[in-house]
């Protein structure tokens, strides 16, 4: 059984490589029981969206849309 620390590591790695079948299964089982890690997993996607938005200049708009 994986602990939360290992699960967060896999969730992070899933942003950088395709996880294997066993990894995905163990992950799934842990996530069914653990809201903390589930939230963490969602936030990995959110972090990526933030990074992309930041580079596109979202941080400089200060509420003003371009169009």
């Amino acid at each position: 059984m994986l602990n939360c620390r290992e699960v967060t590591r896999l969730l992070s790695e899933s942003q950088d490589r395709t996880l294997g079948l066993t990894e995905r299964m163990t992950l799934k089982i842990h996530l069914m029981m653990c809201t903390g890690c589930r939230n963490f997993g969602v936030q990995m996607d959110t972090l990526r969206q933030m990074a992309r938005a930041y580079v596109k200049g979202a941080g400089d708009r200060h509420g003003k849309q371009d169009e």
Partner: protein
Amino acid sequence: MSDIAAVSGSSGGPRPEHTSLLNDTEFLESLRRQMLKFATLQLSDANLAEDAVQEALIGALKNAGSFAGRAALKTWVFAILKNKIADVLRQKKRMIDASSLLREDEEDEDFSALFDTKGFWQAEEHPAAWPHPEEALREGEFWLVFETCLEKLPGNQARVFMMREFVELDSQEICATIGLSISNLHVMLHRARLRLRECLENHWFVEGEKPC
């Protein structure tokens, strides 16, 4: 993918606004500062960063007339800058001392504050559900928090995180560039993300202005 659609949608034909872009010194100066911060963190060399920013700005401003507005210009400028940085990093290959990268990172960090001895979340460190993250992206103040959290990362973690998420290099490319093994890279990215999400949660999503 919806992002890409949004960008190409907003960068249509020239509009009257474009002539004012080049005269908008406040905008240009803030753009330059932001680029410089980005490039300096990536390259950890002020001179190289300054050069990359100058080149990217000059290249982009030559075509400023064809941009629909600030956001479109900025997207373009950063795309050029990202390529310049990736080039410089490729040239700098092996100049970064990979062993020092690891040493800094291997010092046992304070993740015992996050996880108990069995590796489960400490009670008060359980990641919370972030209410409406997409709204945060539209708030100027959020980005100040974001930048501050990024700056609080250990330098090397910030660098690999930015290479991965800002410059969008893949793992292999990052490893080849800085001479790191793939598993070490994954460890560093994991730590960077753990810290970053914790910082954002503590300073925006939980104790921010939004009620839970």
